[in-house]
Each structure stands twice: as structure tokens, then as C-alpha cells.
């Protein structure tokens, strides 16, 4: 196994270190923000892609003018070398004590006994150091020398299904980006097919040379490894979501989650219909909020009887309603003026949308009370707060409506009529 190589980069004036770390994923998949003023890159096995470690540092220095950086075998040593070391130095022993990132008081106490360099600290007996100055100096020294582990909080998991394409000459034209996306999705899908997997969600990142990293996300209703479809969906979103700016030097395509998708043998006979393809396209074109399935919800309140759920969720069985239900339910019941001959009776005529409807017959009432213990009180909709008496009515032309009345004759509140739905 190759020895670990960690690059620490100090860059003053960067407000969002996480964004910088995301952009730096063009060079290595493992990057971590390193507050207050830098990032850490685990470049183990990556440097040769950029002309070795000097080449990688030169390239980063070109993109981030004014940044200081150093490469070492441990994160603590790289941090110290980046901030206090000479360019190209690998040895932390001649550095000042501040290079170990110790608290100020501890450094001051050690300075009193004449310890100014890391090398001097390393010569002290560890047990005495622990007893006199707490665990921090010994631990930081051990971490810098690679004797104790240090945890790097990388922004993403080590990706398993990731394909990257680097370009020495930054890409600017849509046709170049489209070609790169097609190649990347082809490579990713070939790997997924070898493992009999399908991607559930994908993200394509575009690493621009000016430290910005736009991305396109795709989610699928069913696992997908159709390279043509993936490339097509990515290219569709390319124009509106990605601004190439001064050029894109690296593209990455990563399957964030993958699920089992069995390999199928295509034969000459009739194939079972597979609706996942149009569904995946619709989901990505319209967006996850604009397409949904419904699941029944135990509530007598008509507007709460169905809940939306994601397209990828499996559908639950629906109970048969005991009473006729309208085919369209108005999102907000419409206040209507109705004439009822006897109080608390169904109306004989009502006015909706500027049209008078005379009623031929009405069935009801179906009395529905609010389940106040389950839903939030909404002061803007008084009709949801009261008992509702629902009537199915048919007007002289045969159109059927679902009306309800809140309030009682001679009750606390005067009766009000609402139209809530239209029957087929």
C-alpha cells in the first residue's frame, strides 16, 4: 500500500471552505475543510495524474494565487509545513512550536522551559511531558510523526461509483461538455453493469478553473444504468444549470446511491413492459415535487384522506370509500351563496362562479367533524374548524357537486355554504 500523502492548503480570504473543498475534489475525492483558513486534501495515489506532487502544487498555486501549501505523510505535519515551513521542506523538527497547532497557553508554558522548536519537544521524555503539560503536546507531536491517528472530516464519503475526466485545456463549448458527459456516463454504466447495479441518484460536478463547482443532480424512480438516458437527461439540464464561466477543467459523475439491478437478457419474444424509463425521465424533467403517488391516510376530513409520496415509494392498497366521493376536490372550498327553504336542509339553489344552479336532488347530510387533535389550527380558514354537513347535489343540467355547510341555524355562528368538489 502506498504511503499516505496529505496536502494542506492555506488560503486567506476564502469565506466558504466547504465550497472550496468541493471544488478541490477535481484533484482527489477526499477533501476536508480545515477551519479557520484552509483545506486538507488526501492526495494518496492521485498526484501522478497531475505531473507528480510538484506538478499538482504548481497547478493549485496557479488556480489559488497567494495560497500556501505543503505535502507530508500526516495531516498535522502538512499543516505545520504549509504555514511555517520553507517551500519543499519535509521535516517538521526544525519548525517553531506553533507549527503543532497547540493552544497558546501550552506554547507559552513550554517556551518558559526553553522549548521553542518541535525538535526540542521531541527530545523530551513523553511521560514527563504528559504529566506536566497535559496530553495535547504529546498527542499533536505523535500525530505529526505518524504515531497516532488523526481524523480528517472529509466532505463526502469515499466514492465507489465515480468517474472523472480531466482536461488540460479548459472546456467552454456545450458540445465539448456534452461529449464529456456521454463518455462519463458510458464508463460509469459499464462499471455498474459489471456489478449488476443501477444508480438511484447521480450527481455530475463541473470543476471550473475559478474555484466554483456547479452541479447537476438526477434522481431515479427505479434503479437505472441506461447510459443513453443518463447522458440525455444530463445534457438537457446542462444549458440551464451549468455556467462554464472561464472554463471547466474537470468533470466528475458519481452515483451517490446504487441498488441491485439484475442483468436482463434481451430476446426476440415479447418483453414485459418496463415503465421505469419514461418515469425516470418525467421525474427529472418535472422535478420531484411536481410528480407524486398518493397513499391513503386515515382521516375523515376529505382534504386529508390522501397524502402525497415520492414516485419511488411502493404504493399501498386503497380502501373503497363508503360514500360517493368527487373526482375533483377544490384545494380551498369555495364560499357560495345558497338558498335553503328550511334551515339545516339542503339548498334548492346556489350561485357559483357567476352561474345559478337549481338543484334537482340532494343526498345527505354526511356529517364530518374536525379531528382537532391531529391537525394544526389554521386561523385563515374558519371553515376547517367546524363541523361540516356534506351534501351531494345535482343541478337541473345534471352536473353534480359536493357542498357543505358549516354552522347551524340559530347556532353560535351563522350557517355558511361552501362548494368543495365536483363529481364526474
Amino acid at each position, binding site marked *: 500500500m502506498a504511503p499516505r500523502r496529505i496536502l494542506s492548503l492555506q488560503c486567506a480570504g476564502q469565506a466558504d471552505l466547504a465550497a472550496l473543498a468541493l471544488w478541490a475534489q477535481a484533484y482527489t475525492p477526499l477533501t476536508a475543510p480545515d477551519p479557520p483558513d484552509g483545506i486538507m486534501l488526501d492526495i494518496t495515489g492521485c498526484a501522478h495524474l497531475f505531473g507528480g506532487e510538484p506538478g499538482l502544487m504548481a497547478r493549485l498555486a496557479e488556480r489559488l494565487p497567494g495560497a500556501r501549501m505543503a505535502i507530508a505523510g500526516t495531516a498535522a505535519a502538512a499543516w505545520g509545513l504549509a504555514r511555517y515551513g520553507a517551500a519543499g521542506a519535509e521535516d517538521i523538527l526544525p519548525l517553531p512550536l506553533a507549527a503543532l497547532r497547540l493552544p497558546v497557553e501550552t506554547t507559552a508554558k513550554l517556551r518558559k522551559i526553553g522549548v521553542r522548536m518541535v525538535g526540542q519537544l521531541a527530545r523530551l521524555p513523553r511521560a514527563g511531558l504528559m504529566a506536566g503539560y497535559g496530553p495535547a503536546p504529546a498527542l499533536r507531536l505523535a500525530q505529526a510523526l505518524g504515531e497516532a491517528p488523526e481524523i480528517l472530516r472529509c466532505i463526502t464519503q469515499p466514492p465507489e461509483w465515480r468517474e472523472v475526466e480531466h482536461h488540460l485545456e479548459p472546456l467552454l463549448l456545450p458540445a465539448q461538455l456534452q461529449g464529456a458527459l456521454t463518455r462519463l456516463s458510458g464508463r460509469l454504466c459499464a462499471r455498474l453493469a459489471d456489478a449488476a447495479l443501477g444508480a438511484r441518484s447521480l450527481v455530475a460536478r463541473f470543476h471550473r478553473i475559478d474555484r466554483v463547482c456547479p452541479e447537476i443532480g438526477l434522481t431515479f424512480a427505479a434503479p437505472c444504468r441506461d447510459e443513453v438516458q443518463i447522458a440525455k437527461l444530463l445534457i438537457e439540464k446542462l444549458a440551464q444549470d451549468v455556467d462554464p464561466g472561464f472554463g471547466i477543467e474537470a468533470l466528475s459523475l458519481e452515483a451517490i446511491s446504487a441498488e441491485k439491478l439484475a442483468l436482463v437478457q434481451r430476446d426476440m419474444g415479447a418483453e414485459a*413492459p*418496463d*415503465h421505469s*424509463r*419514461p*418515469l425516470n*425521465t*418525467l421525474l427529472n*424533467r*418535472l422535478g420531484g415535487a*411536481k*410528480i*407524486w*403517488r*398518493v397513499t*391513503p391516510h386515515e382521516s375523515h376530513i*376529505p382534504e386529508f*384522506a*390522501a397524502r*402525497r409520496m415520492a*414516485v419511488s415509494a411502493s*404504493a*399501498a*392498497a*386503497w*380502501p*373503497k*370509500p363508503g360514500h*360517493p*366521493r*368527487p*373526482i*375533483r*376536490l*377544490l*384545494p380551498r372550498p369555495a364560499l357560495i351563496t345558497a338558498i335553503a327553504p328550511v334551515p339545516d336542509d339542503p339548498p334548492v339553489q346556489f350561485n*357559483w*362562479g357567476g*352561474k345559478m344552479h337549481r338543484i*334537482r*336532488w340532494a*343526498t345527505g347530510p354526511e356529517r364530518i367533524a374536525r379531528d382537532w387533535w391531529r391537525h394544526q389550527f389554521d386561523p385563515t380558514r374558519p371553515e376547517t374548524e367546524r363541523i361540516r354537513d356534506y351534501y*351531494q347535489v*345535482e343541478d337541473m*343540467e*345534471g*352536473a*353534480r357537486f359536493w357542498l357543505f355547510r358549516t354552522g347551524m341555524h340559530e347556532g353560535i355562528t351563522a350557517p355558511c355554504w361552501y362548494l368543495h*368538489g*365536483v*363529481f*364526474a
Partner: protein
Amino acid sequence: MHAGSAVHELRAPSGTAAHVGLAMLVLGVAARQGPVLWMSAAADWYPPGLAWAGIDPARCLFAQAASDAEALGSTELALRGGMAGVVECHELSRLAAKKLAVAARQGHAVGLVLRHAPARTSQDSTAFTSRWMVNPAPGSPHIPRLQAKLLYAKGAMPGDYLLEIREGQNGAAPHIIAPMRRAG
């Protein structure tokens, strides 16, 4: 009426949902299984109402479109992929109608276009297999009736039909088409 792999246009006067009733009858005949896409700008389809008329909401997908063009384009995609599609739109150009019809033929799917429109408009196209004007007809509380006027059909005579929606029976479609009678 041969309803499979074709698009039918169903019109109704504004303020009624009679055309949805006929759409559910057609789905009961032509799309007995597989997903159904319900596409509209308002997204106020009520799933218990579908369940009452015999369409299982568990196999329905509901989508909201920002414009007529998006609704028709998405439905075209679904039809080409073999899903049944019900789309509600206001304007329908001849080109859009032709594209929908081709998509349905390619995907062997049934498509239904619901519109609130008069029986005759300047953009009437003959791309669809049939065009209906559906009016609500006087019925009884548990058996709503529809009066469907066949405006145009390939290889069929126009005429008036009286249809009934029976509670939850549309899965057994022949039972429901049987009471349909030619009125004129």
C-alpha cells in the same frame, strides 16, 4: 369502440367534470393494468373519488405542469414509454395532437385529452381516434349518468350515447358498457 394504442379527446362544458367520468370508463376498458399518469395544471384530482369509480389510485401517478406545452410534452413521453396518460389542457394545436397520436401508437398506450371546450373549435384535428363532447345527464345519487356525443371517430358513425357510472364496477368494464345505449 377500440380504445387501445390511441388518443381520444374528451370535451365537457366548463364547470363540470363529466369528461373525467368518461375517461375513467375508457381506462376501465383499455388500461386495466399498468401505471396511469394524471397530468394537469391544477392537480386537484381526488384519489378517493377515483377509488370510488373503480380506478385504483395505487397505480396512478399525478403530475402538475406549469403550462399546456409541458403537460402535453410530458404526456407524450409517458405514452411513448407505454404508460396510459390522462392530460388536461386548454389549448391544443394540430401539431400537438398529431405528436400525441404518434406517441400513443409507438408505445401501444391509451391517451385521453380532457378539455373544457365547445364542441367545435377552429383547431379541431383528425389525428385522434375519437372526439367526444360529454355532458352530465340527470341521474340518481349512486348511478351518475353521462350523455356522450361522439363528434368524430375513425370508421364510426357519430351519435349520442348515454352512459352510467356504477359504484366501483369499472374494473369489470363490459358490465358498464352494456347499459350504454345509442340515443340518437
